[in-house]
Each structure stands twice: as structure tokens, then as C-alpha cells.
């Protein structure tokens, strides 16, 4: 049973991509399938980032430690979807002209934010395996705290592209804010209990 969880999650994470590609080849994405595909894949990247960040709180609340083993896969899928999102943007919007990508990144704040988030996620994806985890030790944890910065940048990426209705963007931003706030609170608690311990030692 436990063994089936990972392969199952793998398939579940592939489901959005598969159904979107299926819709695309069957002409169900409308007259601008490239844009639609890019937006949907971007939205799934954001949802997977939320799922990744939910693992810690869920483990704490449920006490189910083995949840942690799913986190790497969720994070990698988030990076995978973000990379597909970026590739679709490069293909449909820029025709793979590097100059234009550079221009977009420099000139448009919402793209700078999205791209920086992706750049931060890149080394996290590369160092996600156990060997790297062992090799980097404490630095691994430090490095992977970069995901918090990525979450902030993704929120900005989404908020900044709103034309007139902030509804959906605010929902994303609020969820990310809650997930980060939970960590801040936990950190504070640890700090104060650590200093209490120090006081007792003295």
C-alpha cells in the first residue's frame, strides 16, 4: 500500500498535462491553443508549488511523517510544469528569439518575477536527490529555503499581470501568504523555546 503511493502520485501529477495535451490535439482549447495551454500549465505550476509547501504543515497537523517523502516529487513536478510554461511562452510568444526573451525579462516586471522564481527553482531541482542532500548537509536546507523566495515571486508574477479583476490572483497570493506565515510562526516558536532553553542552562 505504502509502496503504491509514490507511483500513484507520479501519475496524478502527470494528469493535468496529459488532459491538456489531449484537449490541444483535439482542438478543444479554442482559437489560441498556445496561449491557453501556457496559462493552464502556469496555473498548474502554481498549484504544485502550493502542494509542495503544504507538505510540512500537513505533516505537523497529521503527524504522518512519511508525507515528507512525497515533497521532492511535488517540487520537481512544479519545476517541470514551470519549465513547460516557460518553453510555451518562448515558442508561442517569442518564436524562440533569445533577444526577445531578454527584452521581456528586463522590461516587464511580472516576467522578471516569474523568471527569477524559475531561476531560483533550477538549483533546487538539480540538488533534490538524496546524494546531493547528503553532500550539502546543512547548506542543502539553506539552499532549499529559496523556495520561500520563489513563492513570493510567483505571487508577484500572478498579481502583476492582473488587468482589472484581482479575484483569482488574490486567492493565490493569500494561500502563499498563509503558507509562509505558518513557517514564520513556527520559526518564532523555535527561537523562543531555544532561548528559553539557553536561559535555563545558564
Amino acid at each position, binding site marked *: 500500500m505504502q509502496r503504491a503511493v509514490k507511483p500513484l502520485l507520479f501519475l496524478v501529477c502527470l494528469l493535468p498535462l496529459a488532459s491538456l495535451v489531449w484537449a*490541444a*490535439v483535439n482542438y478543444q482549447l*479554442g*482559437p*489560441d*491553443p*498556445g*496561449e*491557453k*495551454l501556457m496559462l493552464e500549465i502556469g496555473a498548474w505550476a502554481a498549484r504544485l508549488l502550493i502542494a509542495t509547501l503544504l507538505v510540512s504543515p500537513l505533516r505537523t497537523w497529521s503527524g504522518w511523517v512519511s508525507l515528507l517523502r512525497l515533497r521532492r516529487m511535488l517540487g520537481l513536478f512544479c519545476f517541470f510544469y514551470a519549465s513547460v510554461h516557460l518553453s510555451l511562452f518562448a*515558442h*508561442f*510568444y517569442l*518564436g524562440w528569439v533569445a533577444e*526577445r526573451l531578454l*527584452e*521581456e525579462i528586463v*522590461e*516587464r516586471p*511580472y516576467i522578471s518575477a516569474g523568471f527569477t522564481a524559475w531561476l531560483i527553482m533550477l538549483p533546487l531541482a538539480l540538488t533534490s536527490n538524496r546524494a546531493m542532500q547528503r553532500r550539502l548537509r546543512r547548506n542543502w536546507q539553506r539552499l532549499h529555503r529559496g523556495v520561500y523566495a520563489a513563492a513570493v515571486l510567483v505571487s508577484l508574477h500572478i498579481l502583476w*499581470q492582473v*488587468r*482589472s*479583476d*484581482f*479575484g483569482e490572483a*488574490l486567492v493565490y497570493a493569500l494561500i502563499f501568504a498563509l503558507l509562509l506565515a505558518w513557517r514564520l510562526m513556527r520559526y518564532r516558536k523555535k527561537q523562543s523555546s531555544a532561548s528559553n532553553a539557553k536561559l535555563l542552562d545558564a
Partner: protein
Amino acid sequence: MRTPFKSGIPSSEITSESAWLKRRQLMTAVAGGALVGSALASALVSPGASALAAGQSLRHRPATANSPAGFYTTESLTPYEDVKRYNNFYEFGTDKGDPARHAHKMSIDPWSVRVDGAVDKPGVLNLEDILTGFDLEERVYRLRCVEAWSMVVPWMGFPLSDLLKRFQPTSKAKYVQFYTLLDREHMRGQRSFTSSIDWPYVEGLRMDEAMNPLTLMAVGLYGKPMPNQNGAPIRLVVPWKYGFKSIKSIFRIRLTQRRPKTSWELIAPQEYGFYANVNPQVDHPRWSQKTERRLPSTLFSPNRRDTLMFNGYGEQVAHLYKGMDLTRDY
């Protein structure tokens, strides 16, 4: 053959239906000669709101290669189904598919357009007056959205100048302001409390822009009455400006002395100017305007092309902006 601009109806006269039909027959005969076998030299139907409701064809003069420059293009048309299912009409939601899903809730019968402000004869046009009182003609225009996609649409309508002249603008009329319907009950976008648009949606044109022969009041597309999601029953089409200028479902037109504020300008003046002329040299802070995706595109071919100054209508409209700095007056 040259298609005449002027309708030749005295502004006071509301044409009777039979007289209208006779004139239509004459015109179709003439147009038909120039356009043998055109499917758009459409069927005889009596016009009016009932025709709108039934979704029947409306009689109109087709656009041809012989129409005045700018009225017609040989570029391939964006299919009817795509024009109907890919819309920005934020009154019904911000997703491109929202208008097609929700616009049927808007009632367009009865409908009237109030024309007031700096005019000698303010008044109200009922939809029946509009459909029977103006010569409907086809215009095949490129439509360029500020989001960098574009379509080619066969609109059906009449020049805005024909409408304005009937109300006799005074010398104070320097600008034209347009209002979209305000209907919170049936327009879900207007109920959204996270929207920054101050409803109703408003747009504006300078008087000379409004009187340009390209500026169209459209009541249909593809020879059929305007679908709700495309701005039924009557909307503006200004083909050399970004799509958001072409305001939909108009219920009031006001002539003003001062330049009116427009909805997008009010939310983000650094992004959307009053003029909003299609201009590949002036970049929008969100979307590069150098190129566009001509719809429909496919996964394998984005159908990308270079965007043209004034959306390719420079010959017809560039003179309106002589001496202006278009990087400042964007």
C-alpha cells in the same frame, strides 16, 4: 464600382420598411454584379428586432475588392465560431470563454441608444430605427487586441458619422463618449467586488476620429445579427486602434467639449492611453506590440506576424495624428 459612402437619407426621415427593402434590392443588384456568387449578397429578410431574436441574416451591402481602400481585405477570415468563442468582454468575466458562456443572460430586446450632450437634436434611437434607418454594409477589418492577438472579422454596420449627423453635433462637440450597458443583475463581471473597473465601461473618440469613414457602428458579423458576446446589439469598431476602444453593447452616446476619461485610462493611465492607436513602436508595459498572433493559431504554428502601424490603416488615418508625438499620446 465604388461603394457610395452616403446613405442619401435626409436625417429627419425614418425610412419605411418597404422603401428600405426596395432600395436594398437595387443595391444588391448592383453589388451582385460586382460580386458574382457571393454568399454574402444575403437573403431577403425583413429587418428589425424580430430578425435579431431569430438569428436570421440581415440584408447588407457586401464588401468587395472594389470597396474603398481599407473597407476590405483579402486576408483569410477568422472563422465565425472562433469570433464567437474568444472574447474580451469583462462585463461577463475575464476569461476569454466567459462571454460566450454568460452573455446570453443579457437582454437586448428592447434596446435603445440615447444620444445627447453637444447636439442640437438629442434623442433616442430604438433598435428597430437603427436596423431599418441606416444602410447596412459589410466591412472586413483586422482587429488587433492590446494583448497581441488579432483576428479578421467581416462586420456589418454603418459609419458612426451617419448616426452622429442625424443628431446635429454643435460646434462644441469635440469628443464622443460611449457607455456600455450597466446591468449588474445579468452581467456577472459588474458584480465582482475584486474588479477595479468603475462600471459602466466608457470609451471615447476625438470628433475627427469618430467621423472617419472607417469608424463603424456594427450590428452584426458574418451577415448575422451581433452575438451577445461580441457586443449585441450595437457596438463600435475602430480598426486602427486596440480592441478595447471598440466598446460593446452601447446604450448611450454623449458628445462633449472636453476629452472624456476612458475605463482603462482610469485604472492604469501609464498603460492605456486615450488614443490607443495600434503602434508596434510604442511598447505596452505588459505586452510587446511588435508582433501579433493571428487567430486561429494552432499548436504547431503560432501564426505570428509583424504588427503594422495603425494596424495597416495608416493611409486612411495617419493624417489625423500629424504633428502629434505618438510615444507620448499613446
